[in-house]
């Protein structure tokens, strides 16, 4: 048994807050790239949000995109270089608010790319505003009395939304709030990359993740929030696998 930092991750400290799930998801993606031997043929896209700086951590070609546009950028890269591996790494605001159109259409065209969607139910980088995936009753700086279903609508469920699209090959929702969840998440991410190698089409893994800083709780409480609240609102599991 060995457990070492993956080679596709640079040997540097991340800027993420203590207890933030991005570091875990970064590691899982990098491990999968290592295990499948893809580092030298991978082009990743960085979103706008906390993970915009992922190019500081991933040791592979990265293109930083405008907010919400990674699916469009990734579409073009993959179409121009079908022998390469292209992944998008997006947050909830990026994928489910400002970039909904790009997401749905890239998915519906069945673009042969891999999408990693980190859902932490809040806008982290801008300081804790409501995300499309913020839970009912969850307090944010723009829903100070809690998200109200009548005013802001219910949280947007990306896997359920995409499941109806014929172009989508694979959808799974996982979490990184317990070690067991992390191990499952890794398997899902690996499958999403393998699908691309097998030419199956659009694969997306939604990862429920922690944002202790903007939830204004301790890392342990953040883990509990994912386990108790988020998993209830966003049920884990495979939503599509063709």
């Amino acid at each position, binding site marked *: 048994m*060995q457990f*070492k930092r993956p080679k596709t991750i640079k040997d540097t400290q991340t800027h993420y807050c*203590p*207890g933030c799930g991005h570091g*875990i998801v970064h*590691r899982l993606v990098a491990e999968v790239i290592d295990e499948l031997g893809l580092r030298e043929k991978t082009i990743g896209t960085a979103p706008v949000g906390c993970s915009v700086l992922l190019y500081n951590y991933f040791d592979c070609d990265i293109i930083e995109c405008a907010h919400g546009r990674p699916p469009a950028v990734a579409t073009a890269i993959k179409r121009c270089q079908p022998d390469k591996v292209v992944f998008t790494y997006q947050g909830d605001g990026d994928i489910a608010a400002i970039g909904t159109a790009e997401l749905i259409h890239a998915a519906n065209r069945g673009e042969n790319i891999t999408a990693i969607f980190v859902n932490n139910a809040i806008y982290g980088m801008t300081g804790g505003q409501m995300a499309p995936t913020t839970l009912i009753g969850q307090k944010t700086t723009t829903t100070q009395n809690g998200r109200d279903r009548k005013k802001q609508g219910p949280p947007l469920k990306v896997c359920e939304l995409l499941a109806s699209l014929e172009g989508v090959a694979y959808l799974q929702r996982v979490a990184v709030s*317990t*070690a067991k969840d992390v191990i499952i998440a890794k398997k899902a991410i690996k499958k999403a990359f393998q699908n691309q190698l097998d030419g199956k089409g659009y694969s997306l893994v939604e990862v429920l993740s922690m944002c202790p800083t903007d939830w204004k709780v301790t890392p*342990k*409480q953040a883990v509990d929030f994912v386990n108790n609240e988020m998993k209830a609102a966003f049920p884990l599991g495979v939503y599509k696998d063709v």
Partner: protein
Amino acid sequence: MANIKIDAERCKGCCLCVSECPRGFIRMSEIFNKSGNLFAEVTDIENCTGCALCCQICPDMAIEIEGKKKPNVPVKEISQRRTNKELMTKFE
């Protein structure tokens, strides 16, 4: 013995490994690292089984492990775990 190494300088003190360790062998330091964080420490390196659950949950890739072994201390005999729970409540 599993060779577990926690990089104290990389640790941001989120404590997720503390609650994840099934044997309760991880606790937080009482001193700060250079970044001003309390960092995770292994209390019983001899008996670490190398299950790597701490590595799985660590958001900062601060824990590395080599080797794995069967536990020679039954879980129920380990009292350290409670101690860590108490320690955790201190942070909460």
